[in-house]
């Protein structure tokens, strides 16, 4: 049967509807040398979208350090790869699914998890852990509750079914996210170093194979949708959100890993944003080859799909594989065992052309290289964020009692327990979870079949980034380094998920540029390179941008995962040691916002040399078995850290704070840790600190059922816990705001 479609005529107006600006269209015409066909226009529009081309961000991303002794593969592949010893590699990446999650929270978040899983297992890794970083609008906003419910159940639906534990993450609230929530999902997997798969196609004539789910009409133009601002009409974009099937993903994981254990695969890539288009163009482009596809061979879910629809569909759970010659039967039998579609849909060529045929008719015949590497590159104008004036000295005078302020802080949405969320995620499948985030500063997961532990975190403080993007960028990396060090693991590398507003606005582009500069400096100073990442721009609704949110996903390694230290206080009599210098910085602190109702001042300065020294010192203490608990000081400062450790352990502390002011109690100075040390070792730890030049002082003793010694009176652990646990379930049940 032959069938041909009459495609619409391509004009500059039609190109504009595809998100291609007038000057970009002129560039396209010059490259193609004629008016493109409708299918060709669609292909150019997705390949040149911000989402696929990184056209606004690329010039800045080059500033990140991306190499190091542990780096096996940095940015540019589906995910980053690092050496974790004994012939094993950790493969990981974080990616956003912000726009889809706002439009359709359940499927948007679910397919975000599915997409990032594929980025990792496509490289040959079995996924062993998921994390997610969520930012929602203020709780009083009418959409917030519904978004939380949908996003959380979507993440759980997908992650629980595929059988990858969700072990960590963070959830914050701010009115800047009212019209644009953030869903950043991270997956970490493990592969043998000699079994890592890349996406660079090779071998003229080699078969191009499609496996996984069938192609439907869902998600067409998802990449383009994600590259535009939102407005009142965004609801109408719901059809551009994909629908996920975690069951098929689970089969795809098992089938791909089984196929990867053979010698059949030359290269492989998942079909993510821009589906079949970006996977085939990128694979052939990296290999400097051409590719020819026969679209009638693509497994299709519904009849009558046009070449344009097949190429732009973002149907989930699909992979594109270049097989070695003669491997088709083996590959087909494995896919059929797992009841997945398998089809040879084309072959690699030496023509350098991207050729798409359907029933004999040619719908696309383009030079492939320009699609891959000639997208517009913008040096967009940047405008720096003006420095915030320092706070007045008087702000350090404690308002009310320390106990009341502490209770307010542990109950505020950002710090309140997220149990309601994480109990909906299977955190234990794999039987290798040592700590969830919340039990320790980093989640710790054992590498199957070894004693090794991977420490995993997600960090960023968007209010710092907004007040001072450079310092905020630096702080995000430093906090990740600190959280991984706190459990005793060596920080190895990060993935970054850059969430920003409209880059065409100089102030927003300035935020991006300064965050990158700050992050890059911290990465260099801490030997903590970037190995993968994702950029999500245009996070704006009706002109209101989100806070700059460069989420940092960190990975660290411990030789013995069992030795990792959690944050819960355990033993009465242990001595609490405060490590690092406390100046009492209250600018942009949670105390300022939650207790005084102000969002003012500069964020805390970051001393990268001190971060490094303190991190190394804490790791050495963990290695020597000297700590029973360890926690970094971040949001809410010293007292919030003590409270979190006490609540986790169900045991209090007698604090020795003198007449400390609000700055000392709640300041958010960086580079600090709170450690619990057995009494017999306390003096030794303090003198080791002196010898190492690390500021350290005893600030209390573990014991009792309250925090005693607070200026203005004690507070019981039970009442702190009640305040901390109550907010989210009550909010979700509709009995709190």
């Amino acid at each position, binding site marked *: 049967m032959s069938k041909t479609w009459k495609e619409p005529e391509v004009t500059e107006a039609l190109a504009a509807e595809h998100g291609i600006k007038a000057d970009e269209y002129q560039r396209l015409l010059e490259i193609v040398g004629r008016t493109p066909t409708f299918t060709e226009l669609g292909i150019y529009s997705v390949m040149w979208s911000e989402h696929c081309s990184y056209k606004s961000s690329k010039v800045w991303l080059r500033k990140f350090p991306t190499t190091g002794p542990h780096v096996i593969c940095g940015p540019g592949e589906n995910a980053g790869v690092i050496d974790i010893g004994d012939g094993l590699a950790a493969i990981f990446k974080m990616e956003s699914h912000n726009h889809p999650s706002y439009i359709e929270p359940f499927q948007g978040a679910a397919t975000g998890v599915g997409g990032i899983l594929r980025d990792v297992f496509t490289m040959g890794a079995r996924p062993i852990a998921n994390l997610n970083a969520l930012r929602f609008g203020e709780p009083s906003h009418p959409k917030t509750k519904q978004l939380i419910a949908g996003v959380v159940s979507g993440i759980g639906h997908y992650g*629980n079914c595929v059988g990858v534990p969700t072990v960590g993450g963070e959830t914050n609230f701010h009115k800047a996210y009212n019209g644009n929530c953030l869903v950043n999902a991270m997956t970490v997997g493990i592969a043998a170093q000699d079994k890592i798969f890349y996406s660079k196609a090779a071998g003229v004539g080699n078969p191009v194979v499609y496996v996984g789910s069938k192609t439907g009409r869902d998600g067409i133009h998802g990449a383009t949708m994600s590259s535009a601002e939102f407005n009142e009409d965004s609801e109408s974009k719901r059809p551009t959100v994909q629908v996920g099937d975690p069951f098929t993903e689970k089969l795809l994981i098992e089938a791909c890993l089984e196929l990867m254990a053979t010698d059949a695969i030359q290269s492989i890539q998942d079909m993510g944003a821009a589906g079949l288009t970006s996977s085939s163009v990128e694979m052939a482009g990296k290999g400097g080859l051409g590719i020819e596809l026969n679209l009638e061979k693509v497994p299709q879910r519904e009849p009558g799909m046009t070449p344009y629809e097949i190429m732009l569909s973002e149907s989930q759970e699909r992979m594109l594989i270049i097989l070695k010659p003669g491997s088709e039967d083996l590959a087909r039998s494995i896919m059929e065992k797992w009841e997945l579609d398998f089809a040879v849909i084309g072959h690699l060529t030496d023509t350098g052309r991207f050729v798409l045929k359907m029933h004999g008719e040619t719908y696309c015949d383009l030079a492939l290289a320009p699609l891959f590497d000639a997208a517009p590159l913008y040096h967009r104008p940047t405008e720096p964020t003006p420095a915030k004036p320092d706070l007045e000295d008087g702000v350090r005078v404690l308002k009310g009692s320390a106990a009341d302020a502490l209770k307010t802080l542990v109950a505020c949405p950002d710090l309140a327990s997220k149990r309601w969320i994480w109990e909906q995620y299977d955190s234990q499948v794999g039987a290798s979870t040592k700590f969830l985030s919340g039990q320790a500063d980093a989640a710790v997961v054992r590498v199957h079949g070894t004693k090794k532990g991977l420490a995993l975190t997600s960090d960023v403080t968007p209010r710092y980034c907004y007040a001072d993007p450079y310092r905020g960028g630096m702080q995000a990396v430093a906090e990740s380094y600190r959280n991984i060090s706190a459990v005793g693991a060596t920080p190895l590398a990060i993935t970054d998920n850059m969430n920003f507003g409209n880059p065409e606005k100089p102030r927003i582009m300035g935020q991006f540029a300064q965050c990158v500069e700050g992050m890059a400096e911290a990465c260099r100073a801490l030997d903590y390179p970037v190995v993968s990442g994702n950029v999500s721009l245009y996070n704006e609704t009706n002109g209101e941008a989100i806070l700059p949110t460069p989420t940092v996903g960190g990975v660290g390694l411990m030789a013995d995962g069992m030795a990792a230290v959690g944050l819960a206080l355990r033993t009465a009599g242990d001595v609490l040691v405060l490590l690092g210098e406390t100046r009492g910085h209250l600018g942009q602190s949670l105390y300022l916002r939650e207790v005084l109702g102000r969002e003012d001042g500069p964020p805390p300065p970051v001393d990268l040399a001190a971060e490094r020294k303190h991190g190394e010192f804490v790791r050495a203490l963990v290695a020597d078995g000297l700590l029973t608990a360890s926690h970094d000081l971040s949001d809410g400062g010293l007292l919030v850290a003590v409270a979190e450790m006490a609540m986790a352990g169900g045991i209090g502390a007698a604090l020795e704070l003198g007449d400390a002011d609000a700055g000392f109690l709640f300041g958010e100075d960086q580079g600090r840790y709170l450690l619990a040390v057995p009494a017999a070792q306390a003096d030794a730890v303090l003198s080791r600190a002196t010898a190492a030049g690390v500021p350290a002082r005893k600030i209390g003793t573990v014991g009792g059922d309250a925090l005693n010694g607070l200026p203005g009176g004690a507070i019981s652990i039970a009442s702190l816990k009640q305040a901390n646990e109550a907010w989210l379930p009550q909010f979700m049940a509709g009995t709190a705001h």
Partner: protein
Amino acid sequence: MKSAVIVFPGSNCDRDVAAALEQVSGSKPHMAFHKDTELPEVDVIAVPGGFSYGDYLRCGAMAAHSPIMAVVRERAAKGVRVMGICNGFQILTEAGLLPGALIRNKTLKYICKTVDLKVETTDSPFTAHYQAGQTIRIPVGHGEGNYVADGETLKRLEGEGRVAFRYVGAAGAADAEGNPNGAMNNIAGILNEKRNVLGMMPHPERAFEPLHGNTDGRAFFDSLLESLS
């Protein structure tokens, strides 16, 4: 102890339970695929947790009709020990090897946490290593763990001492506080009449070694080993 673990499409605790079986017995379990129509001679068959067939139609419903389950039924009738954990429990009830059914949690939400369980009987190859009445802590992770059965079945289960594990609260009582999913009589695990088939929602393989922070599940596997020696 020779064992087999059944792998359905969508099983995801198969490797975890296999690792626990291997550790206690010293021999690698046979991994059987859902389409298999035979099994080697084994002493124990584990039907693992996960989302067999995506939980589509109804949890466990399609798995119960897969070719391998005919073999499992046959072996169960011959007295081979069969344990179903989580989705495995759902499959065994759908297969008619255990009475009752598991429906959506009362909260309508998936729940993953460590719960307190009371060991209600030590008269089984799965629980002999525990003390009767002992409270143990084992993680659950499920969306459909709410055990239901008709009055007559419940009466028989209780009367014949076939409730293996029961959810309990902080005070050690089988109360609403300790019940994570709304299960009737706080039932977490049951035995068949011959006591060689057990189904339970909690995951003993997730409380098996020190890494898990709690090894209360270890005695479950030790019981099996001992029952065969």
